[in-house]
């Protein structure tokens, strides 16, 4: 138990085309405050499902297990309550909101969580100043704040927009679901730097990725291997190189044998 994020025996299923499909089959994972953990694993191992379940997506039914987030029962909370409590999910495929101005969306979101956290709302001027500065740090074109949320954004722009939202929403725990996918080397570095800037004793993150490259920039405290709905192996940052060299086969075999 870390008293920050403790996932214990988490099982979840989804109703896909009328068939109940069990995806998480007993996930145990603890992340202490201030640490960045990474989850790697083959496709279909349940990594994205884990992120959705933690964020409160209603399509998934939790059948067993508990998630304790900073002393609260996370699974009892509505998605917006989880956001207010400090949880942020950077989406693998960010959603488009036609006609909704990006700056307006960001400000509405920021003020919603600020209200819920008992902080003063930001006025339009202060907000825009902060948002522009943060966007500049991420090398985003200034007009991206004026455009509609994710509409017509390139893959890289969408991912940067996610990191921008994360920066402004000041989460205590962020889940990055394959934020590196579809990024070129430069964009990858910018996004990783964006995350690194947030690192502090009061910020933890769970980074879901397929590639060691992101972890070169974003050196995690721990790496977990996920397969078939469970965490099957955990280790230090050096695990990334090993996986890059050898793949998951050995971990899978060990898990089978156990």
């Amino acid at each position, binding site marked *: 138990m870390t008293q920050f994020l403790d996932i214990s025996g988490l099982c979840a299923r989804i109703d896909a085309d009328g068939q109940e499909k069990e995806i998480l089959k007993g996930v145990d994972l603890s992340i202490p405050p201030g640490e960045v953990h990474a989850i790697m694993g083959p496709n279909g191992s349940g990594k994205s499902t884990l992120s959705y379940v933690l964020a409160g997506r209603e399509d998934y039914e939790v059948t067993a297990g508990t998630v304790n987030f900073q002393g609260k029962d996370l699974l009892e909370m509505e998605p*917006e309550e989880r956001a207010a409590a400090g949880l942020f999910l950077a989406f693998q495929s960010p959603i488009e*909101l036609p*006609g909704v101005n990006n700056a307006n969306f960001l400000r509405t979101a920021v003020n919603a969580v600020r209200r819920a956290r008992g902080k003063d709302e930001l006025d339009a001027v202060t907000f825009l100043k902060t948002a522009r500065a943060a966007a500049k740090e991420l090398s985003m074109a200034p007009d991206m704040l004026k455009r509609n949320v994710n509409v017509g954004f390139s893959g890289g722009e969408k991912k940067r927009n996610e990191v921008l939202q994360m920066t402004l929403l000041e989460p205590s725990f962020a889940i990055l679901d394959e934020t590196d996918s579809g990024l070129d080397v430069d964009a990858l570095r910018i996004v990783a730097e964006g995350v690194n800037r947030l690192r502090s004793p009061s910020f933890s993150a769970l980074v879901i990725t397929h590639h060691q490259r992101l972890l070169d920039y974003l050196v995690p405290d721990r790496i977990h291997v996920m397969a078939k709905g469970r965490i099957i192996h955990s280790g230090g940052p050096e695990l990334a190189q090993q996986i890059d060299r050898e793949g998951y086969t050995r971990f899978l075999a060990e898990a089978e044998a156990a």
Partner: protein
Amino acid sequence: MPAVTETREAVEKLGQSSYKWGFETDIDMDVAPKGLNEDTIRLISARKEEPEWLLEWRLAAYRAWLKTTEPEWAKVSYPPIDYQDLHYYAAPKKKPGPKSLEEVDPELLRTYEKLGIPLHEQAMLAGVELPEGETARPPVAVDAVFDSVSVVTTFRKTLEEAGVIFCPISEAVRDYPDLVRKYLGSVVPAGDNFYAALNSAVFTDGSFVFVPKGVRCPMELSTYFRINAKNTGQFERTLIVVEDGASVSYLEGCTAPMRDENQLHAAVVELVAMEDASIKYSTVQNWYPGDENGRGGIYNFVTKRGACRGARSKISWTQVETGSAITWKYPSCILQGEGSVGEFYSVAVTNNHQQADTGTKMIHIGRNTRSTIIAKTISAGHSDSTYRGLVRVLPKASGARNFTQCDSLLIGDQCGAHTVPYIENRNMGARIEHEATTSKISEDQLFYCRQRGLSEEDAVGLIVNGFCRDVLKELPMEFAVEAQKLLQISLEGSVG
């Protein structure tokens, strides 16, 4: 409803149920007996001390009405209306004569205050200190119509100095008979359709606007309609005439108390734009929509039409329709003048058991006439919404152009959205475009917003406002803010 941000706050403080404008005002009324016949019409005309020609015009309309039948082509259903079971005249008791704020029944002023309608010129002119970053509101002249009668019109002096006439139409009949006689019924003839004929026979008040040659109306004009009395139909008549090179922006708002029975509202609006004139007509329609089981609510059967008579004239209709149990309304443009422009921007929201059949008609008569139609339909609950539009290009309208875009957004799986565009083209040189889409608010969008901390209601509001943005941006700025909030209130409880 004029463009004031306080309106919503004022209204929210009333603490009523989901329809926050549903209170009733207890006021001494002068009511005509129920029923419609020539005597009723004579009584209305006598009460209003009208000239003989207008009485004759009304009676002719009544006779035409007797020969027409209620239209049945719209996709709305309701039990038959007993037109003999209604009052056709109801007015707050007060002495006739020129109206000033001091003379108005304080109870009436309080009603409009509750609704957030600023009728106090002084307070508005003096202005209140605004927080930094906010700009002072330009004043809005208001004509407040309570049941069948205009109770007060503000800023008349300022407008008179500019040469603009803005007054209740009953006063215009008395003070400017030639103007009224020349234009009344010139766009919507007395026997045009069932409801227009009914209105022509029994209309009791409404607004009259006249902007003379070359004058840009110095402020927004606004009429605020309030139905209060029971079992009373409201039949107001608006006539706006804008001469060569002149322009005006006019806003219209409306509410009614919550009642279990249905109330009838059959208005007629006529606009006339001469050479190089422009009229921008914005409506936020918020009549009582009935309760969540479909009980009560206003039947809104309205005929609105504008004539672009002069070359390069322009008429722009913008409407945000959130109220009424039934809406039957097609604000139209007759594009007669060469190079004249007609626009129709519409957001229609239906929830619970509301039914809306609304759209526009663009009649291209002159050469190089242009029209744009942007219609956004949002359906939730068990409601049904139809866009019905006609684009007609006549043989002489060479170079005519039309662009139509109809988008429907569905919330939930019990509602319906329908698009019925009619296109009649008799000129091979015309260019007509039509685009239509239907979509649902996706779970992905809702989840995305909620993950960012927005409540489900706020998320729906944001997505819906995004969907309507092309229309809302056509509204005068503060009206747009109000319309946004109204959209959200109208859709409360529609998700989940």
